[in-house]
């Protein structure tokens, strides 16, 4: 960058006047290590909530992976692997013993112990859906010595390790017991950001929603195995990582182009050609799984309390039109008939109507509506106008459903209003709703236990939309008990057939969010979320 020489001369006078304003905020001078290798990244959102147990926000989960380590971790084959601990299982499958590896330290220098793991497990299980399901089968968890944790089941449950290793929505992060002992409803503070992970949180530099700074944790001992997704050796090759929030997509793009930042997690697909034209920038998909977009119906009120009318909605919609509107560039989206995602081990097209991935079937939807006696009850559809990744779906869906004969009341609102309103179990004309759309990362939907939309517990305990479906719950329970991959696959297929039959939800296809980075960054891991270990800067 060439400084404006002429300006420097005149700067002194103005600077004197401005000194006065600078005094209003006497912030401490925070020194950056000289010659420190710093990576500046713009993430998909600003970090505001620091407690990865209190929220399912992805940015908070990503922050969790920077500073906390996990007991187990999932590799690229969806297999649980040892991370902080190795494990053994008793012959009857009822007792799991986890042994902490040597040399684990907290960022304050103290040792990680088994009692920290127990406290972290309990706080996690109180909030995470998978953890709650696991706890239904757990007789007890205790620290049997400083290095060993024993988990005893009360009834057979085959998914213990998978749930403890899953990367979303709330991963099992291990925290010091004094922090994990806090109620899960009490949010962790800045002072509580003490983990044993590969990076250390720099509390003094934290500016919520604007900047987060992490420094390499020198005492972190990586595992010996090569990194694979979130498992294996977390080798940190940089001194410092700064997450800078840029609310303006064009600003972030400009900053990457000029080298003011190094990594842009989620550039707008529309703007990618600008980045691809720059030889100093790499555009790629480190998250190969991507996300699923979906529509959810409210089972409590007309018209969608009628299964035939739900089926008519399924016939009216199609993934092709929705994805074209949402993503635009076919390079970054694909239709997918599986509720579990098409690149996951349980992927299946069982029960999925072919028209969902084609162009829909308006005539069949019209006939079904007529046969079901649809009386024109309006479908109150919520449309968030402030979220580019959820705003287009309702517009297209409304158009397709109107064409099929539905009366659609498309109601614009901001996303935060939507997330509040969708929790309402009131009738649609009294503050409730009939239909909304959202997106999920595939690790959040890839099996019936983690997929919140495949929950049939109704008003109490079900996800928004509240289907009461005992058959669905029985199949989920059977899935949790199944001991072989073949048995799981079989149950998952039957469950999906049932879910499509009931239109539990409408998967509307998959899309990938590419990332972009300066080409001197190497070793960026392919993982279901952005991680900053393993990467280096080449000189």
């Amino acid at each position: 960058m060439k400084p404006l020489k002429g300006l420097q001369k005149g700067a002194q006078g103005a600077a004197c006047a401005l000194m006065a304003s600078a005094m209003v905020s006497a912030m401490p001078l925070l020194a950056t290590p000289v010659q420190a290798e710093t990576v500046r990244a713009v993430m998909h959102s600003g970090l505001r909530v620091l407690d990865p147990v209190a929220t399912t926000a992805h940015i908070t989960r990503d922050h969790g992976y920077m500073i906390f380590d996990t007991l187990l971790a999932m590799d690229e084959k969806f297999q649980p692997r040892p991370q902080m601990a190795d494990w053994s299982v008793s012959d009857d499958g009822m007792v799991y013993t986890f042994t902490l590896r040597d040399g684990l330290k907290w960022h304050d220098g103290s040792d990680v112990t088994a009692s920290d793991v127990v406290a972290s497990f309990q706080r996690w299980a109180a909030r995470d859906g998978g953890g709650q399901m696991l706890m239904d089968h757990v007789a007890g968890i205790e620290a049997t010595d400083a290095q060993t944790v024993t988990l005893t089941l009360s009834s057979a449950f085959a998914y213990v390790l998978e749930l403890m290793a899953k990367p979303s929505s709330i991963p099992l992060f291990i925290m010091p017991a004094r922090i994990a002992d806090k109620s899960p409803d009490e949010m962790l503070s800045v002072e509580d950001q003490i983990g044993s992970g590969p990076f250390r949180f720099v509390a003094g530099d934290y500016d919520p929603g604007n900047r987060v700074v992490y420094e390499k944790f020198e005492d972190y001992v990586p595992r010996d195995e090569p990194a694979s997704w979130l498992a294996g050796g977390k080798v940190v090759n940089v001194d410092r990582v700064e997450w800078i929030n840029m609310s303006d997509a064009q600003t972030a793009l400009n900053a990457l182009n000029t080298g003011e930042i190094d990594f842009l997690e989620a550039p707008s697909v529309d703007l990618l050609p600008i980045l691809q034209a720059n030889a100093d920038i790499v555009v790629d998909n480190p998250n190969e799984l991507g996300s699923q977009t979906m529509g959810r119906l409210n089972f409590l009120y007309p018209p969608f309390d009628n299964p035939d009318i739900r089926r008519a909605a399924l016939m009216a919609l199609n993934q092709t039109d929705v994805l074209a509107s949402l993503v635009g560039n076919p390079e970054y989206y694909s239709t997918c008939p599986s509720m579990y995602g098409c690149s996951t081990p349980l992927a299946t097209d069982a029960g999925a109507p072919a028209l969902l991935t084609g162009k829909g079937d308006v005539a069949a939807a019209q006939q079904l509506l007529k046969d079901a006696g649809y009386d024109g009850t309006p479908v109150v559809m919520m449309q968030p106008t402030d979220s580019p990744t959820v705003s287009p779906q309702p517009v297209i869906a409304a158009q397709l459903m109107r064409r099929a004969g539905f009366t659609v009341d498309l109601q614009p609102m901001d996303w935060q209003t939507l997330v509040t309103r969708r929790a309402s179990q009131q009738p649609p004309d009294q503050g409730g709703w009939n239909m909304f759309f959202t997106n999920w990362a595939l690790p959040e939907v890839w099996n019936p236990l983690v997929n919140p939309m495949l929950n049939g517990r109704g008003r109490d305990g079900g996800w928004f939309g509240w289907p009461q479906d005992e058959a669905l719950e029985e199949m989920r329970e059977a899935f949790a008990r199944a001991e072989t991959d073949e048995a799981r696959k079989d149950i998952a297929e039957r469950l999906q057939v049932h879910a499509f039959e009931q239109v539990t939800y409408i998967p509307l296809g998959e899309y990938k969010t590419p990332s972009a980075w300066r080409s001197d960054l190497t070793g960026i891991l392919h993982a279901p979320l952005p991680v900053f270990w393993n990467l280096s800067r080449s000189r």
Partner: protein
Amino acid sequence: MLGYCLKRTLAAVPVMVIVALFVFLLLRLSPGDPAAIIAGDMATPDQLARIREALGLNEPMHIQFFRWSGELLQGNFGTSLMSGMSVTTLMAQRLEPTVSLAIFSMLLSVLVAVPMGVLAAWKHGSLIDRAIMSLSVIGFSVPVFVIGYLLIKLLAIDLGWLPVQGFRRLSEEGPWPFLEHALLPAIMLSTIYIALIARMTRASMLDVLGEDYIRTAHAKGASEKRVLFRHALRNAGVPILEVIGTGFALMITGVVVTESVFNIPGLGRLTVDAILSRDYPVIQGLILVTSGVYVLINLLIDLSYALLDPRIRYQ
């Protein structure tokens, strides 16, 4: 003068109370639930209820208001629902970028606009006058973000003279890094104020240039420069000062677009973030503080009238 200041300050108290009450009620009656925002997509109704309870959001509205008011009286703006940090700390983090940028922008505006306005009035009806007024119309008309992106394209991307984004604190890094990062946003911010102040200066100057004392000054042989800047501008200063003061208050509270385009971590972005996440204590604190800024700036403007016009007396 002291009595006047005291009276004005006390008169601001009921205004602030009404603002506080209004903001509190408006936020509570608007749709949106901080608990739902914190908990995310997976939360069950039971979890949401527990978070609301932990945050004190399930208490009756009047209890929440009195608790917040009680804390305010002790100088405590409360704690952010999202980050758990004190609202005072959050505002302090964001105050310097906004205030220093506003001062810089207003200095730039005044230094450019006042001579432009004086010149336009002096050359009233000439080509120069029409050119200046045309420029000021453009300054009003072109949206600030268009000007911002043009500046970035030309000066930052094509020429590489200045950074495209970011902010450096004067208090931490000194004048040059500050100026290097603040120059483009200051130009963007000042465009509309240059137009506004130039027009106001011209109009106000035209009013006084026809007065008897200007003719007297000319008759006494005063130079044109002395007449314009010593006699005319001083007497035309009150409305100009009013525009500058109001503009400064607006800059402090309304620089959201500039802060977004140039990625400046100021009060504007904090306000938008807090509103989008329904972070009630932060929104309430920010609105109270910005209301206080308006009250203070209005008081300072009123007091400064006496400096320009000795006939003005305060009672």
